């Protein structure tokens, strides 16, 4: 029997939000969906609904008035989700950095997984970013599917209990040193 599993990939549906960009990146995202670059043949569909989408494409430095909508859309998306910052101004603020109505970049508000630079980002770059996002989405899905115990053992690393214990230990050690 032929093995389909390594070939099969999830079709990521994207949600696009313009948080104050100049439309340059937005029309490049539209160009990605149009016949020349046509990412729709891989199952990438631009949905208008946050509850059905996996990848959140954000363009623009986050303006004051778009912050609430941005976070609302982000929280409405189901886990696992990937956030892509498209364009220089979304990554760092770009040419709009330090203007009075602009937050410098997207990562001040929500965690960003993929940064796509360029002013405006070309469709090739956006497609590369989407491929990266797909990898991250896969690893996040695996992370969610892992079985986990409600009460973890204290010996495991990276649990809150364990970290708290080790912190206490460090404190005790230092006090011991001072005593000595």
């Amino acid at each position, binding site marked *: 029997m032929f093995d389909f599993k390594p070939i099969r990939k999830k079709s990521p549906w994207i949600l696009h939000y313009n948080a104050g960009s100049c*439309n340059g990146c937005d029309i490049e995202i539209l160009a990605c969906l149009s016949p020349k670059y046509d990412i729709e043949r891989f199952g990438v569909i631009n949905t208008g609904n946050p509850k059905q989408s996996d990848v959140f494409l954000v363009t623009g430095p986050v303006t004051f008035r*778009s912050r609430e909508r941005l976070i609302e859309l982000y929280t409405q998306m189901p886990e696992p989700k990937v956030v892509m910052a498209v364009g220089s101004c979304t990554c760092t603020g770009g040419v709009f950095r330090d203007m009075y109505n602009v937050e410098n970049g997207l990562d001040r508000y929500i965690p960003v997984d993929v940064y796509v630079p360029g002013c405006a980002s070309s469709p090739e770059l956006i497609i590369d970013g989407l491929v990266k996002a797909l990898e991250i989405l896969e690893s996040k899905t695996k992370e969610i599917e892992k079985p986990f115990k409600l009460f973890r053992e204290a010996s495991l690393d990276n649990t809150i209990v364990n970290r708290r214990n080790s912190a206490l230990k460090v404190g005790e050690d230092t006090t011991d040193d001072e005593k000595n």
Partner: protein
Amino acid sequence: MKKTINIPIGSQHIALLEPVRFKFECENEKIVGVDSDVGFVHRGIEKACTTKFKYDAIGYVVARVCGLCAITHSMTYTASIEKLIGGEITQKAKYLRILLLELDRIHSHMLCLSHTCENAGFEAMFMRIMGDREDIMEIQELITGNRVQFDYISIGGVNRDIDAALAKKILSKLELVRQKVLGYMDEFTNNWSLSLKFKGVGILTLDDAYRFNAIGPLARASGVQADVRNEIDYLPYNEIGFKMQKHTEGDINARNLIRLNELLNSIEMCNNILEGLPEGEIFTKLRGKPNGESVVRFEAPRGELMYYVKANGSAMLERVRIKTPTFSSIPAFSHIFTGANYADAPAILASFDPCLSCTAK
């Protein structure tokens, strides 16, 4: 009991490219009242132009006001600074500027037409026009090196030259696009199901166009003879075969036909420029700092764009005021919506070709 229902569109919606919120007050299917909110993408560019950037860099900053008509913004700003400094640029630079302005107009109009079709439910036409639009984007990439935000115009001329081989390549591509535009012309005038969506929908009469101060293709579709390209003297539009387009119906179909005719006219102008491009330098260094006030108008793809610049002889400007086309057209938009069917609202909205990042700056 209240008889009307409020339906919001936006700020994030699949039919919208940019965040804008319309609140429609509907009585059954009819829209009786509209409330629009356009300020979601306000960034504060006008303030930054007077505090953060020097006058020679602002041409590249104001291009980021809008990605679709970026070159028109930098052109208008550059013209106002050149007026203040008082230098003369070469004839070749002027022609190259017009070439890029018209290419920008072509791809912007094609985007608008495809978007109108998509919002009317004709997905195949959307894909067809978007696919053909890539030819224009390729030409822009060949000339300037970037697809969308090409910083081509600088104070004193343009940044890149074109040679004979490139001109030949562009001419062949433009001929291909022209054939395709003639194909759309046939589709838009003869397709029966498109005519149901477009003919007689969203009408703006001539009186209302004057009353609500409509500009650009919106006004020309209603019969107003207003095109800034016909009135300016700092770019030689009269030498290269510019023709004013006019329709009298004022509905969505008339707006589409205006855009299609402008596409053909722009392609013809580009051909004329490439065939008769004069020899010479593309850049002249202009000496001195701007001092005084100037107002420059220009025809963006959506209508009249106006810049007011006030300078005091130093590198920092005192005031930059940008009046964008969509901002002036909002009263006309709201007027057209009242009385229309709610099902037609997305198609009507797309036919205005609104640019909200221009409006909010």
